[in-house]
């Protein structure tokens, strides 16, 4: 059996749309020093250091070589990863692998992005097949707009429900000092926003942010010695999806990476009522239809029930099942750290350290997800106790 892994240090920068007086490395250093301070450890204690972001966004390949002075990786095992939107959650999972292997006791993982430095949409467009898809699927928004139309069609969800999701997220982000977009919007405000790609208007898309997040992960023996409030990484699933149209369920049975991830994680952990057995979900929610649609896909609620939960107010910070109480990706999206922030924020909820945006229910177990690349999924289960 593999070693157990705990999160013992959490650090993040504040997030914004622009920070012209900070370069990539200085941004990372800010998050790293905060995570080390939270763990009460020094960089010399770290046995491996890993860095993740989207290369093309800053026009800078293999940037870990230049950035190792800021990340603290020099002289240590470490690598750079880029898996698109999931890069942050993959960092947490790669850290888990290092420690679970028994070869390492302490590991530092970092995710970052500086969206103000390059054009994100053309960079994302380069993930698709240049011969047939690239002229038509414009960035991430094109693909997400098509799944939104399909979701409205099959579930009865309306544009107004997406606006409710964004309005809820704005109220949550207003309570999170590290979030990027902290303005409060009403449903009417969201409905009035400029259309970007039907059915997604400007407020229904995630912003382009910059920021960094870092976690210190520890083995069981180490965590028990050094940490008063370790958060256990109980399980995680990564699923890659088939490139193509199976997600629409037309011509063949509907099948998505989120569905596969939810089924595997819940079965393996004997979870039959996810909304009871986990108390909060920090979801990677890059567009406003994501929360209702993906609660269904992760098998957390029944098909076509997601938007009804929004209508009931069940997913708000003080609701029956809070989803993305930090404001989520909808309010802060510095891609390379977006999915790591989900893990960090879920861990803060378990520790009871989320401050103003701490949910009202007691959190014993939490979910965090990542989404990206060509529609692939990470789903993590965090726990207050080891078993």
């Amino acid at each position, binding site marked *: 059996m593999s070693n157990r892994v705990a999160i013992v240090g959490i650090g993040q920068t504040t997030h914004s749309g622009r920070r012209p007086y900070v370069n990539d490395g200085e941004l990372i250093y800010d998050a790293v020093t905060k995570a080390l301070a939270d763990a009460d450890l020094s960089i010399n204690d770290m046995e491996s250091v890993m860095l993740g972001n989207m290369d093309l966004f800053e026009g800078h390949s293999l940037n870990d070589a230049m950035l190792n002075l800021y990340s603290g990786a020099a002289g240590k095992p470490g690598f750079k990863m880029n898996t698109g939107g999931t890069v942050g959650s993959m960092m947490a999972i790669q850290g888990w692998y290092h420690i679970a292997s028994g070869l390492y006791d302490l590991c530092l993982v970092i995710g970052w992005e500086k969206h103000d430095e390059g054009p994100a949409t053309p960079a994302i467009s380069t993930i698709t097949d240049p011969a047939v898809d690239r002229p038509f699927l414009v960035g991430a928004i094109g693909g997400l707009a098509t799944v939104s139309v399909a979701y409205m069609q099959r579930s009865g969800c309306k544009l107004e429900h997406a606006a409710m999701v964004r309005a809820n997220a704005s109220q949550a982000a207003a309570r999170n000092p590290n979030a990027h977009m902290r303005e409060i919007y009403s449903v009417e405000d969201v409905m009035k926003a400029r259309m970007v*790609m039907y059915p997604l208007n400007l407020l229904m898309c995630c912003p382009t942010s910059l920021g960094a997040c870092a976690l210190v992960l520890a083995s069981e023996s180490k965590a028990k010695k050094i940490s008063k409030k370790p958060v256990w990484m109980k399980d995680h699933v990564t699923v890659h999806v088939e490139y193509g149209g199976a997600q629409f369920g037309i011509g063949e049975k509907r099948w998505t990476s989120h569905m596969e991830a939810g089924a595997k994680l819940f079965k393996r952990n004997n979870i039959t009522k996810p909304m009871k057995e986990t108390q909060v979900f920090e979801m990677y929610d890059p567009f406003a239809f994501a929360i209702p649609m993906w609660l269904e896909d992760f098998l957390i609620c029944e098909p076509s029930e997601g938007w009804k939960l929004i209508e009931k107010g069940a997913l708000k910070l003080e609701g029956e099942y809070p989803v993305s109480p930090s404001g989520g990706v909808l309010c802060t999206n510095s891609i390379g750290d977006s999915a790591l922030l989900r893990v960090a924020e879920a861990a803060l909820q378990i520790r009871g350290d989320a401050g103003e945006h701490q949910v009202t229910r007691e959190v014993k177990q939490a979910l965090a997800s990542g989404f990206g690349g060509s529609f692939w999924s990470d789903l993590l289960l965090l726990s207050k106790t080891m078993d």
Partner: protein
Amino acid sequence: MKPKVQEELIYLDMTLKLPFKWRTGETMGEFFRELKENGILYANQCPTCGRAFCLPKTVCTRDHTRCTERSKWIPVGPKGTLVTFFMAEQSFLLPTTGEMLKIPFAVGIILLDGAMVTLQHQLEETDTEKIKPFMRVEAVIKPKEERKGNIYDIVHFKTINE
């Protein structure tokens, strides 16, 4: 007192302009040859699961089986059903050409008659009120002398009434 706004320090403008050549491979190459020479859209079939792919692919994602047996290719379309769509009302830089997207730009996910896997292409209609999921559409293929053996040999998909 308002906090002093920090002035912008030095930044460098940088443009990456890198030329690439991308091989379409044996299966898409054959698909484009048929489209160019005969104006016919083909799907290929997986011998293991029987799914018909248009756009065709060399290997089935699920079975990892080669699907290149040419005698098993079947003509599909040019009519099909619109599954879903998006409509760009904001322009973006296109990485393939370095040009800005011409808006309005509607893209449909389309299931061609006879195929079991969807493809995406531009829609002629750009009024979101008139684009309905599950409406019938048809590929408009360029005249032979204008065809080059690429995805733009299909001009767009037009709405049809049937």
